Structures are given as structure tokens and as C-alpha cells.
């Protein structure tokens, strides 16, 4: 599933387009502890979180993730969005909870990260 298709699946708005919205998502993940994500993030990951700290973008870029999904209608501030634009990181925003996002992703065949 591509990032574009994932946005449709989650009924998400695209707060920031990524470099390539047709890029496939390699796995799905839910976590709100940034230090935990630093330890477990993976390339191509679709990461859902309620965390809106400015480091969310930097960490997603560091891990070469496909996209960040902000759940429950959370928003990044302008500075973070500007950073996402600069780094060409896709940021999706959905009203759904991280639980629902994960359920939908799993059902659509997006696997958890492989160890």
C-alpha cells in the first residue's frame, strides 16, 4: 500500500506531502514515547502517534520512515510542518485513534515491523 492509498484508507488529510506519495509503506507502528521510537523505528514505516513534539519530524526522518500519522486530530505546529516540508516527510492527520489506525492498517495487510 502506498502512502497516498493509506491516507485514503484512514480518511486522513495530508498535512504535508512526502517526496514520493506512491512509495509503499513497509510496516506499521504505534508509539508515543520518542525514545522508544528511536530504538524501534524502521525505514519505510508508517508511524502513528499523538505526540506533536518538534522532534517527531526529526526522528521520522532519521529512521527514514514513509510517513507520520497524527491521530485523534492532533496537529504539528508551523515550525514542525516547515521541517517536514524541508525534509520531504509525509505527514497525515486523522481524527481516528491510534488504535483504529493500527486496526485498519493491519486489516489492509500492513505488517508490524520485522525484528
Amino acid at each position, binding site marked *: 500500500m502506498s502512502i497516498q492509498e493509506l491516507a485514503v484508507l484512514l480518511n486522513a488529510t495530508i498535512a504535508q506531502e512526502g517526496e514520493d506519495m506512491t512509495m509503499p509503506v513497509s510496516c506499521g507502528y504505534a508509539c508515543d514515547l*520518542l525514545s522508544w521510537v528511536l530504538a524501534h523505528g524502521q525505514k519505510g514505516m508508517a508511524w502513528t502517534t499523538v505526540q506533536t513534539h518538534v522532534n517527531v519530524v526529526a526522528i521520522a526522518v532519521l529512521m527514514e520512515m514513509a510517513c507520520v500519522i497524527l491521530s485523534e486530530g492532533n496537529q504539528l505546529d508551523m515550525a514542525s510542518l516547515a521541517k517536514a516540508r524541508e525534509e520531504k516527510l509525509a505527514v497525515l492527520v486523522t481524527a481516528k485513534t491510534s488504535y483504529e489506525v493500527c486496526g485498519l492498517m493491519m486489516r489492509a495487510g500492513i505488517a508490524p515491523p520485522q525484528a
Partner: protein
Amino acid sequence: MTPWNIVGMAKVKGLDVITLTDHNCACNLPQAMLAGRAYGVQVLAGIEITAKEDVHLLAYFADTEAAVAFGEEVYTRLPDITNRADLFGNQIIIGDDDEQVSLAQKLLLNAIDLSVDEIDAWVCAAGGVCVPAHINRGANGMIGALGLMPPLPRFPVVEVCQQLNCSPDAVKGRLILHASDAHQLADIAEQGFSLDVPAPTAKHVFDYLKQR
């Protein structure tokens, strides 16, 4: 920011005692102490540690050597993830003449592998004072991360962000500190926060916090 220009700015602002608490690193303290002596500003040695719950904890020590040794231990407990300067900035360690001598390699904004309680016990065992930082601010503040403050006698001293609301229940019975949490020179506070200690020295401030 460098240890010298931080202490210099503190002198300009007429601050008696300051603390320098880099994230998960105490390598810049020796230069800060030199600057303190040169400029006539008292510097209390410290470090800001990120617990595995993502909570930030300040640790203050009676002397620089203890703080530096503690900082080295903290650094070993960071995950082996290298900093990316383009994303997180440079992690500069300053030497003589306010010049960069090296860069900290591991990503300092990461968390170490110890919980809030484990760090509290460790700081105490090392003779330091553990003060939760900006307890009322975001996911790195203890209230946000843990939902509520552990009850007294745990954490009798807390640092509270003045710009944000803080529940009175969270701080009841505790000594409240307000810090600049300056990540830029311009953010170093004016004279605004004071402690009633016998003399304006780092030692007196440390003893005052320790005896709570």
C-alpha cells in the same frame, strides 16, 4: 551557546548562582566552572537526564568532579544511536579559549535505560539532588508523562515552567524552582527567581535543595 558566553550572560544579567544542565552530558561543566571563577558567577554543577519514560530529571551535585563522573555513566547508558547534526544540531564540547574540542557522538536527546525511580535512587546514592524538570510541560514533564506526581516524600523539589499552568495539587508541599531552561542565550532569565540561602553560593544552594 558555550559555557563562557552562558556564564558571561549570567554576569550581565546580575545572576548570583546558575546551573548548567546539558542533556545527558556533563562534559561542558569544567569550562563553565572556569568561566564562573573568571566572571564571578557561582555555577552549580548539574545534568539533565532523560529517563526511559521520556521524563526529564535534573541532577545537581556538590562538586564538578562528581557531576562529570556521573555524566560519563549517563552517557554509557544512552543507546548506541549516533547524532545527526543536520537533524538535531551539533553536540559540541568546549575546551580552552571557548573553542570546540570534540563532539559528543551518541544522540544526547535520547533516553537512558533507567526509570524515573531508578535515576532518583542513583542520583541520591551519588550524593546528588534529583529534581524533576518542567513537571508541567508536555510529554517530558513528569505530570504529562506519568499522569500525576508521585506522592511526597518523593521529589520534594520540582522545577515548574512559569509560562504554563500547573496544578496546585502537583506542587503542594514541594519546593518549586523556576528555571530559564534556556536553549539560547536570549532565553536566560533576568533576575526574577530567588532562594533564601545564607550566602549566594552554589554550595549554599546545593545544601538548601539537599536538606528538603
